[in-house]
């Protein structure tokens, strides 16, 4: 019977091809929009998730705070308030901390042969690689001996290596940083862009001690001071709790009174990114919701056309009833017709949505992720809309009085 209803539905849809196509258009656009929009949103989410991955999860960064001299407050990092000793104290005294790596950063012109390149010079310790989840691709990392002996070794980021060496192997070569020769001992793996768009691979890592003595110079106020400490929290530990403990420890070490502001900055970057991820998730829902509206409008279009169709075919309905169609036969016939409309529209919409999502990623160069669940959901939604909006016209048809329907002009 259902198969029969499907055949009748297809026939009546074929009779009015243009009307059928226009009715389907609403559902097509709705389904396509839902799929494309959700794929854009999912793409954004995936990007953020990747950034979190590249940043290294569980990372807290301590930065030197602002100075407050006679009421004049200078900016962040204007005073080198944190030290290597702070770093080792954090690693030692806060149990949630896996590793704490002090580092200092500056910029310098780097020369290799007849090429030169201005890049960030980061003075690091052996712990830095672990704290930042940043493996060495070729060669070796900075070792404890390098820091102890202030050796002149350097590791290149991918961007720096490309600019100084091109495709050549940089390992073992001598580069000059501020005229000081360094031996390249390693090449870092690619880290990609940071969440604020900075190229993290445009960097050279050298031992912290060497950096202070030869490249970046030493703070006159405190020879042990550093620019930042990268702290990795043990997996599955509470980041907020770790932050609280680190802040308390630093305040105690810096002898800050309760009324005084922190003289350092704590940055929990993964938290920032998680917020971003949340907001991109919200954006996905929002896009899907907006796209759903067009699906809804498409459904109303179906209802509209089905009502017209029922009126137009009143005599046909009367005849079918006269020759023995029961109410439910008529109901099924029109319901199947509405659902067929929405399902065919849905299938075409899925194709359009996939195509649209690919076009967006190709033309706008946005990352898009096609989620099968979104496709299934959009299709199911289309079917549900067919049933929902087809039901009223179908019921109206099934409740017609056969005598009046037969007489209808």
């Amino acid at each position, binding site marked *: 019977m259902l198969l029969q209803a499907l055949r009748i539905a297809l026939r009546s849809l074929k009779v009015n091809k243009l009307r059928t196509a226009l009715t389907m258009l609403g559902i097509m656009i709705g389904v396509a929009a839902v799929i494309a929009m959700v794929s854009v949103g999912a793409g954004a989410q995936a990007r953020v998730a990747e950034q979190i991955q590249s940043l290294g999860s569980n990372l807290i960064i301590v930065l030197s705070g602002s100075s407050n001299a006679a009421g004049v407050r200078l900016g962040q990092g204007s005073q080198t308030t944190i030290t290597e000793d702070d770093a080792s104290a954090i690693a030692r005294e806060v149990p949630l901390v896996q590793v704490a790596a002090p580092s200092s950063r500056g910029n310098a012109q780097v020369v290799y042969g007849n090429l030169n390149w201005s890049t960030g010079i980061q003075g690091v310790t052996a712990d830095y690689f672990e704290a930042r989840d940043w493996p060495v691709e070729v060669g070796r990392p900075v070792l404890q001996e390098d820091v102890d002996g202030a050796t002149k070794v350097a590791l290149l980021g991918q961007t720096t290596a490309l600019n100084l060496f091109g495709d050549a192997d940089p390992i073992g070569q001598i580069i000059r940083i501020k005229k000081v020769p360094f031996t390249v001992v390693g090449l870092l793996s690619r880290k990609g862009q940071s969440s604020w768009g900075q190229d993290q691979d445009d960097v050279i890592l050298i031992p912290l001690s060497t950096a202070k003595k030869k490249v970046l110079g030493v703070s006159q106020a405190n020879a042990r001071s550093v620019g930042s400490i990268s702290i990795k929290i043990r997996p599955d530990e509470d980041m907020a709790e770790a932050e609280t403990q680190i802040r308390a420890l630093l305040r105690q070490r810096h002898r800050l009174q309760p009324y005084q502001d922190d003289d350092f900055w704590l940055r929990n970057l993964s938290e920032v990114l998680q917020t971003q991820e949340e907001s991109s998730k919200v954006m996905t829902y929002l896009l899907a919701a907006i796209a759903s509206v067009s699906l809804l409008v498409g459904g109303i279009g179906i209802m509209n056309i089905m009502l017209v169709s029922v009126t137009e075919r009143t005599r046909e309905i009367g*005849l079918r009833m006269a020759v*023995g*169609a029961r109410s439910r*036969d008529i109901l099924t016939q029109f319901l199947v017709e509405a659902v067929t409309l929405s399902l065919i529209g849905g299938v075409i919409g899925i194709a359009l949505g996939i195509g649209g999502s690919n076009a967006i990623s190709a033309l706008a160069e946005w990352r898009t992720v096609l989620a099968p669940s979104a496709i299934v959901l959009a299709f199911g939604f289309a079917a549900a809309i067919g049933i929902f909006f087809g039901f009223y016209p179908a019921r109206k048809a099934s409740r017609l009085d056969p005598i009046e329907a*037969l007489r209808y002009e």
Partner: protein
Amino acid sequence: MAIIATEELGKDYHLGPHTVHALRGVSVSIEPGEFVAVMGPSGSGKSTFMNLLGCLDRPSAGRYWLDGQDVARLSRDQLATVRNAKIGFVFQMFNLLPRTSALENVELPLLYGGISSRERRQRGRARLQAVGLADREHHHPSQLSGGQQQRVAIARALVNDPAVILADEPTGNLDTRTSVEILALLQRLNRQGLTIVLVTHEPDIANYASRRLVFRDGRLRTDDHAEPLDAVEALKSLPEEDEAVA
């Protein structure tokens, strides 16, 4: 046993505060093989009577046995099943499904009787042949003349082997010659044993039936038997012309 038996059949319509007594107690009995013409001016109750006979409506009062079954108190869906099994309808406007082949039009009632598609096809073809349209089974109604369309409608009415054919002004939209041809077909089917009830307001048409029921003011006024005219004979006296014109 009578194929149609009504007992004090009545039907009231409520139009706002007014009650219209469309049918005021009609008792009639129609035997198998009869060819009955139902006549009367508009408002006489003949349409209401036919709707009740056709199980399209339920009576307000009285009883109705169709082929031995009491159908006066059946539900909507039960009536649909009775219509499907026991009644063949022929309408003035033919009421064929547009853009649907003659054969599929004939098969339509079988669709709602749960008959397999193979048997539907078989029975549909047989009925089309019986009305002389075997060669037109794939034609759509728009490709057929009025007379041919009515023949398809008659084939459709026959396809379920109904107990009775109810024809409501079947010649109302046809020219004289075609009308007589359709009557000839009905007479032939009647002679083969089919019970036919035909509604008409034209005495000329009613003359081809063997029994006349005349309605007036919701009551049965006249019920007489008469020797019917022979449609085949009548055709001979009609000029051979415009057969194709509907």
